[in-house]
Every structure is written in C-alpha cells, then in structure tokens.
C-alpha cells in the first residue's frame, strides 16, 4: 500500500518578513495532485502543521481546505509538533469525518487502521510531539500498571515518573507500540504493516537554523535505536529531507515543504512516497515540492554586489553580506533596488579589513601605563615622551602600592 509522508508545514510562518501563505497554499495544491496521480492511500503529516500555538486565521483556513481536499482521495493522519498547540490542533478530532485522523493525544498505542487499495491493512501509530514534562507523567501511568494514578493538576505523588528526557518518553511510547503490535499479531496472523509517526530529533540527523531547539536538561535528541520494531518511521521536526539509520526499519524525515531559513538553501524540498507490503522492507521515493523562489546568498563589497556579477541572483530570495570595511551610505536601499527580493542585508566585514577603531582595546588585563600613553597620543596627536611616560608609570605604581597596602 502507498503512503505519502510529509511534515513541518509551519503554516503561518514568514521568511524574514515575507509572508509565505501563497507558497504554502501552492504546496497544498501540489500535494493534492500527487495524491491523486500516485494513487496514494494514506497521507501522513508528522507534526509542526502550524508555526505557532495560536495560528493566524489564514493558516487555519488553509489547513481546513487542505484536509478536506486530501481526504477526498486518501486517508489523512496528522499529528502535532513542538510548534503546534496539541489541544488546539486536536480540537474536534473525534468528530471529524472518516478518513481524517488528527491525533494529538498521548494514547500512543491506539493505532489508526487503514486499508489500502491493494487490501493491505496498516496500523499507523501517530505520536504527537512528546513534551517530556507532560509525557513522563502520562506515559508513566500507562507503562506502570501497578502505579496509582497521579492526581490531575499539581500533585503526582506516588507515580513512578519516567526520566525527564526525550529518550525516556519516546522510548516508553515505542514500548507501548511494540506491545500493541505483538498483541495484534496474535489476533491477525494474516499480516499487516506498521507505521510510526514521531516528531523528534533523532541522533544522526542534520539540523538547520529554522528548527526551534527542544533541549530538555541539556539534551535534545533521541537515539535511533528506540524506533525498532515497526516497518516505517515517518519523522518530523528536522527541515532537511534525510534518512535515519534505524535497525530493522526504514526511517526518514520528509523535511519541510519550503525553506524557512538560509541554512536550508541547499535542501531539495520534497515529500516521500512510501510503499509497504507485509514481510518486505518499505521502499521510498521522493517527490520534489514546488520551489516558489530560489534562496541564495551574496557576499561581497557593495559595488560588486550591485554589479552584473551577481545578476543571476537578482530574482532570488537573497541574503546579502556586505564586506565593506566602512558602511556605505544608504546601502540597504541600494541593495533593495537591485535585489527586489533581498530578505537580509547584513554587514560582514572581513576580519582583516575590520573597521579600525580610533580607540584602543582596553581590558582589565591591560597595562594602565600603556593605556594612559595611548590616551596622550590620542588627545595630543603625538606619541608621549619618555618623561611623560615616566610620570604615568610612577603614578600608577604608587596607586598600585597604596592599593596593596590597603588604603
């Protein structure tokens, strides 16, 4: 059966002030076409659907229409990421029409059963972003059947909490999933396929600048080994498409549909078509996402930047780094005239050509005599004479002595 794996839509996000709404809408159009053309059975959206907990209304409208259009051709399973507010996103999930599964709760071992056009049955376990502080309580209660249920709200006395780390909570969720899969295998010997959707930073993944750090207790990642035991792991969070080495399973990040920072200008944004049949490893194939506008960078002195040398990038979303030692007048305006889509214009003088300050670097460790000598040179325009330096030397020595003697 065939899945389409995507994630990190970040609806409502702007790129350095540019509203990406229409480009995100274009991506949704593209996605519907792919689902239709490729006869996709299930669409998996692995978290970070919205960019913020409280998304703008345009973003909400876009998601609403996207779900409606996609569900005409395929089932949709959607989870919340670290940018989403799980409860807001999950509002009304129970009353949504058949074929649309928005899963933002922590009952991670309750799979979504979908059946493909080829008759293959698949159990999809959608994990929302497992926020350790919340999940260590909720999952602990389910993992340890003998523990007394912790009180809602403040107190959690008596519960055996999980460690406060991503590894612990994702590991516990996977333990639950593996137990559930084992149960089902007994009941359904004919065979089915299993898919886990998770929003996490798996060790070995390559981050970019646009992901928000999720470190808890100083650690932000999960070892790949915890995901064993299922056929395919659909990961979200990292914005670069990439495969992750999980023993016995195929696991990958689909990446975001659009670049959300200049560090992603080398990425090839895409979605993943996954084919899974029981008893065989999943096979994946990337489908390129539409590129609304190229991202690129220009780093040079202003005159060169404005010259024909970089004419090929004028229609890009560019980041301009000016290496002029002295800031040229009105440089921002002049750059924007030539590069209408310049998103960032920064000065980045080469370290050697850094603007020489009229003032000397002074630190606590500096010799005060040298500093005062430089001061004389600075105010008089001539280097201090030996006699003047001697006076300064004597003055500071006397002060140092008095300080040592406790005055």
């Amino acid at each position: 059966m065939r899945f389409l794996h995507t994630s990190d839509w970040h609806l409502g996000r702007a790129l350095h002030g540019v509203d990406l709404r229409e480009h995100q809408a274009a991506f949704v159009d593209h996605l519907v076409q792919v689902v239709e053309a490729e006869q996709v059975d299930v669409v998996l959206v692995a978290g970070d659907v919205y960019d913020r907990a409280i998304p703008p209304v345009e973003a909400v409208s876009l998601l609403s229409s996207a779900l409606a259009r996609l569900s005409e051709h395929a089932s949709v399973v959607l989870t919340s990421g670290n940018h989403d507010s799980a409860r807001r996103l999950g509002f009304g999930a129970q009353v949504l029409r058949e074929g649309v599964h928005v899963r933002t709760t922590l009952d991670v071992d309750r799979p979504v059963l979908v059946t493909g056009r080829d008759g293959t049955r698949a159990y999809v376990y959608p994990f929302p972003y497992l926020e350790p502080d919340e999940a260590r309580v909720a999952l602990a209660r389910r993992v340890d059947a003998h523990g007394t249920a912790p009180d809602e709200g403040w107190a959690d006395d008596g519960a055996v909490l999980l460690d406060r780390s991503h590894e612990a909570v994702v590991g516990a969720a996977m333990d639950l999933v593996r137990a559930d899969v084992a149960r089902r295998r007994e009941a359904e010997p004919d065979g089915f396929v299993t898919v886990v959707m998770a929003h996490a930073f798996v060790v070995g993944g390559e981050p970019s600048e646009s992901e928000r750090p999720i470190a808890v207790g100083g650690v932000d990642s999960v070892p790949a080994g915890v995901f064993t035991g299922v056929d395919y792991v659909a990961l979200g969070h990292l914005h670069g498409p990439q495969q992750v080495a999980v023993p016995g399973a195929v696991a990958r990040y689909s990446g975001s549909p659009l670049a959300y920072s200049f560090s992603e200008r080398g990425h090839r944004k895409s979605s993943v078509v996954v084919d899974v049949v029981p008893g065989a490893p999943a096979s994946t194939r990337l489908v390129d996402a539409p590129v609304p506008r190229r991202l690129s960078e220009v780093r040079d002195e202003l005159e060169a930047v404005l010259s024909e040398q970089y004419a090929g990038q004028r229609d890009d979303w560019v980041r301009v780094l000016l290496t002029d030692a002295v800031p040229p007048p009105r440089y921002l305006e002049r750059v924007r005239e030539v590069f209408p889509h310049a998103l960032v214009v920064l000065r980045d003088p080469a370290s050697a050509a850094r603007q020489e300050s009229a003032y000397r670097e002074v630190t606590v460790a500096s010799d005060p005599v040298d500093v005062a000598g430089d001061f004389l040179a600075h105010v008089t325009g001539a280097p201090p004479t030996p006699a003047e330096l001697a006076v300064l030397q004597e003055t500071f020595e006397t002060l140092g002595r008095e300080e040592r003697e406790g005055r």
Partner: protein
Amino acid sequence: MILHSLQLHAFGTFAGTVQIDFDAVGANGIFLLEGPTGVGKSTVIDAVVFALYGEMAGSVASRNRARSDFAAPDDPTFVDLVLETGNGIFRIRRTPQYERAKQRGTGTTTQQATVRMWRLEPGALDAWALAPRTASGRPGEARDHGDLDGAGELLATRLDEAGVQVRHVVGLTREQLAQTIVLPQGEFASFLRAKPEERTQLLQQVFQTGIYLDAQKALADRRRALGALVEDTRRAAVGSVERLAALAPDAPPPVEQDAPPAEQERQADPSPVEQGRRARVETPVPLPWLTADASLDPPSSGHDAEEGADVLKVAETCREGSDSAAQQAEQIAERARQARDEAAAALRETRALLRLVERRDDARARRTELQERAEQVEVERRTVAAAQRAAAVAPVLARAETAHEARTAAGQAWDDAAGTAKALGMVAPGGVATGSVTTADDGGEPGKEPTTPFGAWLGQRQDELLADSVLLDALERQVGSLTEGADRLQEVLDELAAVRAAARADEDELAAVPQAVAVVQEERARMEATARGLDLATARLAAAEEQRDDLGRVGEALADWRVAADALLAAKARADDATHAEAHLRLRRREGIAGELASGLAEDEPCPVCGSRAHPRPAELSDTHVSQEEVDAAERDRRVADEEFQTANGRHEAARARLDHLAERAGLDGAVLRAADTDDLLAPAVAAAREAVVTAAQERDVAARAGEALPEVLARLEALGAREAELRERASAAASARAGRVARLESGCAAIQDDRAGLTDQLREVAARVGVELALPAGAEGAEPAVAIEPAVSGEPVASVEPVESPGPTELPGIAAPSSTVARPATAEPEPFAARVIAQTRAFEKSLRPALSRVRDAVRERRDALAAWARADGTRSQAEEDARVRAEERDEALAVHGFTTADEAAAAAMPVPELAALERSVDGHDSALRAVAAELAVADVAALPDEASVESVVTDVTRAQEALARAEQEEDEAREAATRARSLALTVAQHVAEVHRDVTAYRDAVRDSAVVLRVSDLVTARSADNAPALTLSTYVLVQRFEAVVEAANRRLAVMSDGRYELVRSDERERKGGRNLGLALRVIDHVTGAVRETTTLSGGETFYVSLCLALGLADVVSAEAGGIEFGTLFVDEGFGTLDASTLEVVMTEITRLRDAGRVVGLVSHVEALKQMIPERIQVRRRPDGASEVRVVA
C-alpha cells in the same frame, strides 16, 4: 554572579515556603518564570534583589511589600539566597522589617530587619546537592537552606556590614544591578536611555576602571605639591644671590691694568675684587624675579630658565674678577722669588773662588817636600831588581833537589825486596841484580820485556810458579770429580737393591696363580648346569597358567547358562499365559456377537445376518461384551510373548554350547557341571591350577638367575690368565736390569781406584817443587796409608810411602801404590766390594784436601814476593832518570838569569813581603810627584792670577751674603699679598657656587614639574593640547563601551534583520555637559538616518536593550577578573514583540546556553511556554496566596 538557590518564606505574594534551585532550572541555559498576571512572577526577582540589597528590584521599591499579607501573624518572613561570584560562594539570609503581633497583650510591635551573610566552602554546594531529597522526591525541592546552617564563615550580621560585603562581592549597586543583570519590568531600557554620567559610573564599576580615575586625581594632587616645591627653591635662590651681593663691599679695590715691579706692590695694590665690585655697580644684577611677589606662580618654564641664566652670568663675572686679581698678586710674588734666587747664585760663585785659591797654595808646598827624598829612592830601586831575578830561578832549584832525594829512596826499596825473596829461597844469579837496570836511552817498561839478565831471570821464575798454581787448580777439580764418582756408584748400588726387591714380590704372586684358576673353573661348571634347566621351567609355567584361565572361563560360562535357563523358563510361562488369554477372549466375543450385530441394525435397513428389514427383537448387547479391539490387543500380546520366548530359547542354546566347549577344553564334563546346582565341582580344580602356577614360576626364576651370573665368572677366568702373562714378562725385565747395574758397578770401582793413585803422585811433585814439607795425616780407617813428603832444597821431591798394614789382594788398594789396584774376583758378590771402594774414596778425599791447601798457600807466597821485587826494580830505574833531567834544567836556568852558582842566586833572594814593601815605597814616591804636577796644571788653578789672594776673596763673600738677605725679605712680603688676594677670590667663588646650585635647583624644579603639570593637565582635560577635551577615565570607559556596543550589534543585526545598529557618539549628550563620549545613537539602515534611541518603538526598545545588556555581559565575561554576569533576568517586555520577531529574539536568547550563561525570562506570553521546557510556574491558590512549582 551565578545564582545557585533561593528560598523564601512568607514573602510578597507567597504565604508559604518557596524553594528554587537555579542550578537545576538553569541547566538548559534558559528558563521561564511564568504565571498569570499579578500572581507574583516578579516577586521572585524581587526576592533575589532583596536578599542582596534589602530592597526590591523595581525603582518603585517598597520595603513594606516584602512581608506577605497572607502570612500568619507569627510566621516569620525571610529570604535566603546562595550565589557565587569570582570572590567565592556566599549565602545571604534576610528578614524585612515588619509589624508582628505582640507576644503579650494585643497590638503589634515592629520586627526589625535582620541579615546574616556567610562565605561557604567551595565544596559546600556539592555536598548539598548530595543531601537526601525530600519525601516527595520532586526535583527543585532538594535543597533546603536550613541544611546549610552552621556551614561556612559568618561575614556579617549587621545591615551596614552586609551592605559593604555585598557591594564587594557583587561589585554593583542595586541600581546598577537593575540595569545590567536584572532587567526589571518596565525598566529594561534604563541603561539604553541612561544619562551619560550614570552610564559612566556603571561602566566604571562593571569594568573596574577606577584606577584611571584615581590616577587622574593623583596627578592633580601631584601638580599642587610640585607648585609648592618650585616656590621653595625659588626662595632659596634669592637668598644665595643676596649673600653674594653682601660680600662685595669688603673686597679691596681692583688692580691697575699694567702692574708695577715687585718693589712697588706694597705702595699700590689694586685688588681685582674691587674691580669686580666696580663692574657690578656698573651693571646692576638683572633679577626681576628676585623681587617678584612670592605668591605669583612662576612663569612658564622656558622663559624662567632664560632669566636664571642671566643671574648665573653676573655671578660668574664676579668670580672671574676676583680670580684675576688674585692671579696678578701671584705674578708679583713670583718675580720676587726670582730675584731672591739670583742673589743666592752670586753668593755661591764667590765662595767657589775662595776654595780654588786655597788649593793652589797647598799643591806648591807638597812638590818641594818630595824633591828632597829622590837619592835614597834610587838605591831601593836597584835592590828590588836583583831580588826579582832570584825569585825567577828558585822553583827550578827546588825541583832538582826533590828528584835527587827520590832516587835515593828507590834504591833502598829494591834492596828490601831482594831480601824478602832470599828469605824464601829465591836468589838471583850473581851479577844479575847489581845497580841500576836502566840506561839513559832505554825507556822500555820493566817487567814486560826484560832486556836485562836480571829481568829475564825474574820472569822465568814467575812463569814456573804460575804453572804450579794452575796444576793445583786441576788437582782440586779431580778430587771433586772423585767424590762425584763415589756418589754415582752409591746410586747404582741403591738401584740394584730396589730391582732385586721388586723382582721378589712378582715371583711370589706368580706362584699363587694356578690355584686361583682351579677354584674359578669349578664354579663355572656348576652354574652352566643350572642355567640349562630354564627352558623347561618356562614351558611348565605357561601350561599351568593356561589351565587356570580355562577353568575361570568355564565358571563364567556356567553362570551365563544359568541366567539363560532362568530367562527361558520365564519366557515360556509368559507365552503360555498370553496364548491362554487370547483364546479366552475370542471365546467370549463369539458368545456376545449377537448383541454386537443387533446394535448395528437400523430401521428399514436389512439385517446383515438375516436380511430382514424388520427387527422385532434384537439381541441385547451385554455390558461385558468383548470388543474386536480387545481381541486384537490380546493377539498382539500373545505374539510379543511368543517372540520373546523364541529369543530366550536361542540365548539358552548358545550359552549351553559355549559351556560344553569350554568344559571340554578344561578337561571337565559340561553335562556334569549343569547337573550340579553349585560350583563345588569346579572350585578344587581352580585352586590346584593356581598352586601349580606359583610353583612353576619359582623354578623358572632360579634358572634365570643362574644364567644371568655365568658371564661374570667367565670374565674372572680371563682376568687371571692375563695377570699371569704380565707377571712373567716383568720377571724377565728385572733380570736384565740387574745384570746391567752389576756391570756398571764393576767398571766404576776400577776407575775410582785409578784416579786416586794419579792424584796423589801429582800433588807430591808440586810440593817438592815449591819446597813444602807435606805430611798427610793418618786417616780414620785403619787401612789408610800414610803419605810423607820430604822437603828438597833443590826442588826435587822425594816421596816415601810406607804402608802401615798391607791390605789383602781383594781389599782396598793403597793410595801410594797404583800397581796395587786389584780387580774384584768374578765370583764374589759385587755389592760389598763396591761399598768398600766408596768408603775408601770418601776417606781419601778428607785427608787430601788440607795438604792441597797448604801447597797452594806456599805457591801464592812466593809469587807475591817475586812481584814486589819486580815493582821495586821498576821504580828505582824511573827515579834515576828523573834526577838526571832535573839537574840539567837547574843548570840552564842559572845561566839564563845571570847567576853563576846556585848559592849566588840564593843570596839575592828576598822574602815576598819585604820585596813588596820596598816596591810600594819606590812607586809611592813616583806617583806623589806626578799628582802635584797635575794639580798645578788644572785649568782653574792655572788660570788664577797670581795676585789673587785668600784675603781679598773673603771680602767679596761677605758682600754677597748681605745682598741675599735683602732679596728674601722682599719675597716674603710679596707672597703674603698674593695669599690674601687668593683667599678673597675663593670666598667669592664659594658664594657663586651656592648661587649656581640654588638657581639650578630652582630651574630643575621648574623643568621637572613641567612634565607632571603637562600630564596632569592632559589627563584632566584642562590643557588646550587635549583637543577633544577628553579625560583619561572617560577615554578608558569609551574603549570598553565600544566593545559593549560592538557585542550588542552582533545580536542586534540578527534580531532586526540588519536594520538597526548602535553607535557610540562622541558628541555631547546635552548642552553644557562634559564630553563623556558615552552617548548612544541608533543607525537605521533602512533610511540611513541616525536616530536618537528614544525614537525607537516599544518592541524595538526592548530588543535593543536586551542586546545591550547581553553585550555588556559578553564583554565583562570575556575578560578575567571582571564582574561575572552568570545569571541574567529579563522581566517581561516580550509582550511587545510580534510573533515572528519573538521567534527571532528567542532563537538568539536560546543560543546563550552556548556561552555558559543562564537567562531567566519572566513572561506570561504563551509562545514562550512552548519554547522553554524549564519553567518556574507561579500559580494562585484558592486563598489568594501564590505558590511555585518548578519544572526542571
């Protein structure tokens, strides 16, 4: 400053205890203080600031807010904070002032504020962290500050002490803290918008650049101190100039240009000092500053130095004037000294003339005296000449006399030697030894080639005696060899005895051999007989063993058979039973088969037996009916039992056959054995077989041992035969050795006897020749012959031998009778004879040696006498020749020196001392005459005019002495005048030097202070040279501030997408203010305009302020020794940011974790909760008080 832990109680909105472990909550570098509005988020920050300073964070501080309104009246309020700075780890516990219920009565009383502050050990936190957790096990409540009670060093217990300590530890005031480390709500922009003066103080505190301000002040102080010093030196200079001026009136008037002669100096003595004074009057000292008002500041350094130089120039003129006057006086004194020298020279010349006149007169008187003695001196001169000639002849005469005396003595010696020789019987033939043996022409050496008859005779006699001496040496050697021959003979004799003894032992052993051979042969025969029985014994043993083993196997087979027989019986019984059971079952089945068939009947189906479709009365199926299965089972059992029986039968047959076969081999009957119940039949046979094996083994061992011993006996036989052959061979060798030795004995005896005889004869001959009476004493042996030698005057020895007892023909032969040597009879034993010969030879040697010695002594005595005679003869010839030569020399010398005889010469001789005295007398007269002539010829004397007399010259001398006395007095006076002038000049010079010193000191002071004044004015910006009017301390702060701005811009560029950049401005912030260089502007790159910071929007102001605070922390943390900004608090402001800006700002803030810092954000903004997992949640309880929950 790093916050570790905070505990508070009944503080602000919190009624109970709140415990926050910043180490845990800040582990990620960022944490969030969140909660609804008014619930007390800022109270946490207030508590931190309160613990440090006793005041709240915000400027709207009110101490009364500290005490919680929710607290019970008796519940004490406190705040307890543990923090760390570069100075160490500290704990501060404060309680605020508040009203509490009176303990007695009603109403309230004021509880005063308290504080305690400790310094904790560096390891205290570690130990604390390991302390047991609270029962709930909830993180964040682990640290109870009560656990720290008693730990560390108590630093302060009073509010003022604690204030000082906190300032020292934190390094900032509360206001400064609120601008940098804790950014309170609504005041985050205070540093951004601070007045430059405030900024100055803060930066100075933060960067600890106070030393530059101190230096600025110190230089200003020095500038004042140096002004006083300049004034002091100026006064000293004025004083010394005045002292110099006061000296001038006492000085004498100056000298004229052309000085008069020395005689006139006393009349007109113009002083150079006077001249100097006059010069000073003409040019008054141009010292305007001498009279200047002391309160005025000295003029600028360059101008001042010039004026000082003028004063010095005038003073120098004074010194030069007095010095030149002194020099003139000294010149006059010098001229007086020259005049005195000239007078002294004139006196010396006059005195010399007087001495010459006196010399001339003396010489003339001596010349007259000498001329009177001339005649007598001539006589003495002749006498001296004769004595000198006689002295020349005297040695020759003396030598001639000596030679004559030697000749006489030599003649006497010769006579003595001749007498000695004669006493020994040696007389020269007549006419041979008379007088001298030499002639005048014969210079040959006497004794070597005798040319005279006496010489020839003497040589012949010496040769004869030498030959006898040689012969005696030979005889002595022969006696030695005779003794050796006897020794050799004795050795042979001993060997012979040894050979005989060895031969006898061998013969005895040889005789015993046959007997031993016989004994061994017998033993051998016995053993061979025994060994031959071995094979038979071995065979018997093998047979016995086989019989025994066979019997053993029969026993095993018998046992096997019995087992098989028993099994057969059992199998048979089982087979019978099974057959029977099957038959019984089949029978029962047949009986009940009707019931079985009936049970299979169905309605309308034909009966298999009768075909009827109606079954009116079917048979009942009995309960005990046997089914087909049961029958089949019984049949299977029977078949199995049969098979087992067949198998047991086969095994039984095999066991029986094997038993029979083995019994037959052992000589027994198998049937008999099977019939018997027990092993009784077999046991005796087995015992007998075992005994037979033991016996046969013993027999075989005996035979084997005999066979092993046989080779040893054969070897012994062979050894005996070899020994016999060896003994026989050795006997024959001993016989031949004996024969050889006897032959050597016989020949040795004969040779010795011959040698003895010859020796005796020769000795006798020599004794006779030298005339010695030789009497060989009678030996110890009776058989020794006596030897007597008669002396013979003519040298013909006559020997007479008279044997005392004639020896037998076989006995020892006599010494004197060579013919009596007799060979030993062949039949006699050789040994006794040889022993006798050896004894005789030994006795002979003992008697002969004294005689030989005596003869040798006689020969040597005669040889000595002859040699002495020959020497005396030589000496006499030499002496005669010498006497003759000396006489000739004497005669010749006399003729040469004019003497006719020797006596005449002797008369003219004089003793040497007398002659010398006479010679000196003559010579002295001659030289005195020559000296007088020379004295008179000297030039000065000869030139004297005759009229110059002693009297006239004495008068001249007196006049010259008077002139000298006058010149000396004049010189003394001139010298005194010069000394006075010099003394004055020195005094003037001394004062001038003082002036020079003081004026120079003044000038130096002015010059030295100039540098300090300049530096001081520059660093305090009072100098016009300081064009930017910038003080040192401000300059330094500007450096630091630039670094801060640069650090802030790094973040600002990101947060504003490159739009804003902060710039430091050198422009004055406000009119009339000092130039502090610490103004701030913002460049808006969108418009290119430079804006005031106040024109930024609220949100922009927030993130710009944030960047500035972080930049400040960056710069401070980057350098060692500065104040650490380990923990930062930002209280609100995030609400002013739109969502995407918030995202950017937060991304930057979360990067702070990499810098090792902890940032605490206070906000209720929902998005932050999503972004920051570490949180301090503040919630309101139903009763209105707040409580805290830490999520970390």
